[in-house]
């Protein structure tokens, strides 16, 4: 086989796999939109009544129904929605009358900041804890990690958040309270700091406003710590299980027989293989925090995507719910693709 024909076949292969990924992406999306759309129409919440309230006359209700396009057949409403979504238009929130895309641009950075920091905590603590537990199964350390993990699984986040607030904010005064900044800074932020990313830590750092930055840190530490704890519980359990599995493999015995230092056996040889499934676990946990931090956001008055979608659902603001869902879907798909890429990076077999 000549080099050029081999290149050609590699290119065709690449194109084919890219096309496959794109097609599956398109179907995933369409499926996501369809399911959410149907659920949105099946729930017994009348968006018109929830906007106009108890006093509206029949004529006002009818006019609003037409304005929102709810008088059209379902398939037509769905078609319009898909068409607009493809053009980057997620519609207008029924409740606030603002473009959904603008609202999400406001809420998503707050969630992104919180979930990223939470995941960082989860990985930094969870991975070493899991590894430590796996290398000394049955030991005190293992029992401790298991206990901490179990508590993370079983304690309701609502309770954990309130207790955390009470202790660290209410009694000890170690951290800032609910919200992203103290009131004094909240006002300054609005007028003195250019909001480039919507993430306060980044924006204040970029503006060199370190006083405000540290105030923001003091506010995010607790909610991020609580999310980090939940994420840690999951990551440490999974790391332990993956690592136990690897440590029983023959190549590990071989490395040990060859006299390789234990640290190297664990952190280099075994870890390389643990990383492959662990990346998926971390990505999923990250995605979960990005869309599932509703209760934490509520307790900490954190203006994020989770509470945005939930509030919207409760008042029947379906464009907002659908818009939020699309963004979460994109995040899931994006993180999946990212973990695919990372596989290739850590596992040479995946590059073939």
């Amino acid at each position: 086989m000549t080099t050029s024909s081999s290149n050609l076949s590699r290119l065709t292969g690449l194109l084919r796999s890219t096309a496959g990924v794109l097609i599956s992406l398109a179907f995933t999306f369409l499926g996501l939109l369809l399911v959410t759309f149907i659920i949105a129409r099946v729930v017994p919440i009348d968006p018109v009544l929830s906007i106009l309230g108890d006093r509206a006359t029949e004529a006002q209700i009818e006019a609003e129904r037409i304005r929102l396009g709810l008088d059209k057949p379902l398939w037509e409403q769905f078609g319009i929605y898909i068409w607009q979504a493809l053009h980057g238009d997620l519609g207008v929130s029924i409740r606030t009358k603002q473009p959904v895309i603008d609202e999400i641009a406001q809420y998503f950075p707050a969630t992104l900041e919180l979930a990223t920091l939470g995941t960082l905590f989860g990985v930094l603590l969870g991975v070493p804890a899991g590894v430590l537990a796996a290398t000394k199964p049955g030991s005190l350390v293992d029992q401790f990690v298991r206990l901490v993990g179990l508590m993370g699984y079983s304690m309701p986040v609502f309770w954990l958040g309130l207790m955390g607030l009470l202790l660290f904010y209410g009694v000890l005064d170690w951290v800032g309270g609910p919200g992203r900044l103290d009131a004094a800074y909240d006002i300054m932020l609005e007028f003195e700091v250019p909001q480039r990313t919507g993430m306060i830590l980044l924006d204040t750092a970029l503006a060199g406003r370190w006083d405000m930055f540290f105030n923001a840190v003091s506010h995010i530490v607790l909610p991020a710590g609580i999310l980090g704890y939940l994420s840690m519980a999951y990551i440490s359990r999974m790391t332990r299980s993956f690592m136990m599995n690897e440590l029983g493999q023959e190549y590990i015995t071989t490395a040990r027989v060859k006299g390789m230092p234990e640290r190297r056996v664990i952190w280099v040889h075994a870890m390389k293989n643990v990383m492959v499934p662990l990346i998926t676990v971390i990505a999923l946990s990250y995605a979960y925090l990005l869309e599932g931090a509703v209760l934490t956001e509520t307790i900490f008055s954190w203006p994020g995507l989770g509470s945005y979608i939930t509030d919207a659902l409760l008042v029947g603001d379906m464009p907002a719910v659908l818009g939020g869902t699309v963004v979460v879907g994109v995040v899931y798909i994006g993180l999946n693709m990212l973990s695919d890429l990372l596989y290739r990076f850590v596992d040479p077999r995946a590059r073939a």
Partner: protein
Amino acid sequence: MTFSPALRRVGSAAIAALMLGAAPAALFAETPADTLVIADAIDDIVSLDPAEAYEFSGLDVVNNIYNSLIELDPTKPGELVAGLAESWSVSEDGLTHSFKMKSGLAFASGNPVTAEDAAYSLIRAVKLNKSPAFILNQFGWTADNVEQMVKAEGDTLSITTDKVYAPTFLYNCLTAGVASVVDKKLLEENAVDGDYGYAYLSDGSKSAGSGAYVIKSYKPKDAYFLEANPNAAVFKPTLAKVLMRHVPEAATQRLMLEKGDIDIARELTPVDVEGMAGNADVTVQQDVGGQIFYLSFNQKNENYKNAKFLDAMRWAIDYQAMADTFLKGSMVVHQAFLPKGYLGALEDTPYHLDVEKAKALLAESGVAEPKITLDVRNATDRMEMAQSIQNTFGQVGITVELNIGDGAEQLKRYRARQHDGTLQSWGPDYPDPQTNAGSFAWNPDNSDEGKVGTLAWRNAYDPGPLNGMTDAAVVEGDAAKRKAMYEEEQKIHRETSPFIVMFQIGYQTGRRANLSGFYTGGAIDSAAYWTVTK
């Protein structure tokens, strides 16, 4: 694999950030001296345009941003004071009202406040025809005729109504948010396709008023920020800034209040209030709001036309026990359709739980083994009320089956007259007794095709003579006579209608002890921020 050194670097940076971050947390333990910081659930805001705002939180903002011709004095509940108009009079035929504007007043933009602006504001609200427009439509104003009926003549605004109404009825309606006076010049400069500046005001970040404050920023479901209006003249603000933070969780509000991170917490539960007792830094302000909670029964079911049966139910509810236990502080017993604070509201509470009396009345009624399906919204306090009612009705021999569901869905059934019994709440629309009389005790067309839509209609209740009494009270010019008419009407209604009014909502507002002068607006008005000092 070489990420452990990297991990170490990230880890130490994180710990450093944690330590540094924790230290300055206490720097701003108190709120700024010139700023009022409030925590409330503000996700009910639909709009901050006075022609559209119609929710509690939205109307609070409107009240502080805009002025009306006549205002309610926040320090003296129910008392009308001059707003942008310095005096007003009514013509001999009672159809035309003249409002002479104060001179020398300006909007926040610097534009002068004129009679032209006042006329424009009313016309705008009627033509935009948003939810609260009906308050103005009551005077016979429609999109087609409003320009002939509301006119500016020099420094006087002239208002004509389709028939003679009680002047207090008109004045009270003019204090509602929908009658706020907007800056015509500013809105017309920013109008798109003749929309009266509706799009301009729609994102809530801009205002066009002459009130105590102006909006500096608004982030839905997050916060709004107001700044003192330098041109404010009707009500001058004491504090330079107001920051409202959306804090939906009551326990969180309480914690922030006790820590001094906010000045006012507006959504405290009885549990929070009890927990704060003994803390000298905070105090709780109690007053009542306008919302009332009631049971009503659909008279398509003949049982509910039986006077004895209705009476049996009135004596089969443990009003006081509910108010003293799970509703403590958040509701007070109230048994008439006009909430306390309204002209003519009946404040006596003749009914209490009397199982034997109720049993006797039930026996006299002849209704055998009554069974009620009670629609209840899935909110904690309502479900608790419903369970208490189910229990005490059970003691009397009335079986209650609870149908618990989403509020909007239940509202749909209620509006379609498909319920059997329902536990509902009702908040008045404007500070005049007609708002509730016209809904609880007025239904001139009880047919299914009737387009009346009042609460009486929804329950298929024909109020008979009360229709005429409602019509007469709304045109009665003598305020004392008018009051007596509403008192009489409530008495009859309470004894004969298929409505059982049980409670009026209570506000428990937590505030820092160093702060004073905060008025929630009680039953008839919205919150005033301009009076607050600290």
